[in-house]
């Protein structure tokens, strides 16, 4: 079923699910949503399976034309989305009709927004996943980011549209995205490659996310992390969130599109529950790493999974506004006014 047509594309809008597992031994990266929490919750709002594919939007700009009546949810970063130019709430199931226009307008917080739809985005599954891996031109829509005039197909809903419209995530379950964050890590697997001094710099300084950061990894800058005698290792596996430190002493946090193996020592690994928060940070934001142990990381993970599985949605009684209302923001004598103008038939 044709769900959307791309009226205007953003810089990098790609189709992602929770990733491609089982083929790393052939060199195939996992990929998947950078913020898997947002993708999972967005799918749950709509009654989808958690792993349904959605659109990961990494900067404002995307405008979609709706081609059939369906229900969408926007989760993750707040890019000031609108439906027919009316502000649209995020973390909520919203009904859209043929001819509606969905737009993502400006960054309010975070760095990756997700558009989910009832039934999920329908693209072919490759090696068990719909995730796009642009470098090898595979998955998603023809292995590339969305572009103008693309038609995006959607799957059949698991539930009745009426049953999910208005479902929303309670404010307590909506993550806050901050510019500076403490990110928890477990040391290793090669923390013994680094000097006392290097480890201390790593755990006690702020590191800034540089512009040279993408889905493969975030390159950070800050005090140099000194190794004992070089940080080249014999190539081994790279888990999600592992922090490589090459010769220049500047850490790189490996993310969704990371290569499967690599030859730099890894000082630490970001714990699973903090990956999503980290992936919502952007260049210029700062991170401070905090050491925790494996038991704590597992405890936090169990708690979060329990919370996700027991998530209760609130239900809003939706007031559906006709599409012929226009809203103006007016500023008169230092005060802001919102004016709604409705065409009389």
């Amino acid at each position, binding site marked *: 079923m044709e769900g959307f047509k791309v009226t205007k594309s953003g810089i990098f809008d790609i189709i992602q699910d929770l990733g491609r*597992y*089982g*083929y*790393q*031994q*052939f*060199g*195939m*990266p996992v990929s998947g949503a950078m913020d898997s929490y947002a993708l999972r919750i967005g799918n749950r709002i709509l009654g989808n399976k958690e792993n349904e594919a959605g659109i990961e939007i990494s900067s404002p700009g995307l405008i979609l034309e709706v081609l059939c009546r369906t229900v969408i949810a926007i989760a993750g970063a707040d890019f000031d989305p609108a439906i027919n130019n009316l502000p649209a709430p995020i973390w909520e199931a919203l009904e859209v009709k043929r001819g509606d226009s969905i737009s993502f307008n400006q960054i309010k917080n975070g760095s990756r927004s997700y558009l989910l739809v009832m039934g999920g985005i329908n693209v072919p599954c*490759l*090696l068990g996943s719909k995730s796009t891996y642009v*470098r*090898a*031109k*595979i998955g998603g829509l023809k292995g590339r980011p969305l572009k103008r005039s693309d038609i995006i197909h959607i799957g059949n809903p698991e539930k009745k549209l009426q049953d999910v419209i208005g479902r929303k995530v309670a404010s307590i379950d909506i993550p806050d995205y901050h510019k500076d964050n403490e990110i928890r890590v*477990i*040391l*290793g*697997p*090669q923390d013994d490659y680094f000097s006392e001094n290097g480890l201390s710099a790593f755990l006690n300084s702020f590191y800034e996310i540089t512009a040279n950061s993408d889905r493969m990894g975030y390159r950070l800058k800050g005090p140099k992390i000194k190794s004992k005698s070089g940080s080249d290792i*014999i*190539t*081994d*596996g790279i*888990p*999600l*969130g*592992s922090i490589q430190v090459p010769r220049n002493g500047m850490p790189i946090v490996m993310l969704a599109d990371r*290569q*499967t*193996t*690599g030859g730099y020592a*890894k000082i630490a*690994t*970001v*714990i*699973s529950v903090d990956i999503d928060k980290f992936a919502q940070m952007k260049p210029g934001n700062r991170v401070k790493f905090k050491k925790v142990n*494996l038991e704590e*990381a*597992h405890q936090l*993970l*169990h708690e979060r*999974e329990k919370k996700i599985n027991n998530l209760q949605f609130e239900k809003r009684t939706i007031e559906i506004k006709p599409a012929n209302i226009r809203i103006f923001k007016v500023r008169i004598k230092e005060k802001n006014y919102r004016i709604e103008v409705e065409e009389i038939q």
Partner: protein
Amino acid sequence: MYKKTRYLTAGDKAIVLEFGNEISKELNLAVRKMHYCISKKNIQGIKEIVPTYRSLIIYYNPQKVKHADLIQKLKELENTVTEIILPLAHVTEIPVLYGGEYGPDLEFVAQHNQLSTEEVVKIHCEKEYFIYMLGFLPGFVYLGGMSEKIITPRLEKPRLKVIGGSVGIAGGQTGIYPINSPGGWQIIGRIPIKLFDQKKESPFLLKSGDYLKFYPINQKEFKEIEKKFEEDNYKCKVGPYGRI
């Protein structure tokens, strides 16, 4: 090779079993034996295993298996590993069109080693290369066993785009770019087939623990094989290791 395998923590969803800190076939054999052993066991909670030169990274789901229980199971398995006999390795024969536009650095490799281009091709095709592991890009094989006679340093200035299928030399290593990628290897030829082809039912041509051997083809053969491969009508010659 270590006397005792190191069990390293790689975050809250992965364990690394490190068997040593060198590149050697003996060490890699230990890696493959353990990999085989774990794969056969079907241990609850293990999501994926990635073998490398000298280690296994085991991805697990801590919701399904406790870390301590998993470590214990792996250690018990390790004690039985010496009895394992690995399945016979295979050699895949890979056609290469050497030199010319597809192998722009063949001349340089020859000059650098004071050989003729024909000699470089002959030396490159003599060996059966051991596939230690795959990584870096989908289908990229890390090969061992290249002759010292054709060692050549990387390009001083890497190319922004190396065409997928290019065969190259970097220092003492030889390899094949599976897809288009920037790269600094000396490119000596190209293969008419794909190491990773998403259209195929089994998209990866090679796997770790096996061998590959190159053989030279001409332009006409290149075009023919390329066409047949596209039509899903070409199979590489594969034989048991040590018998061809």
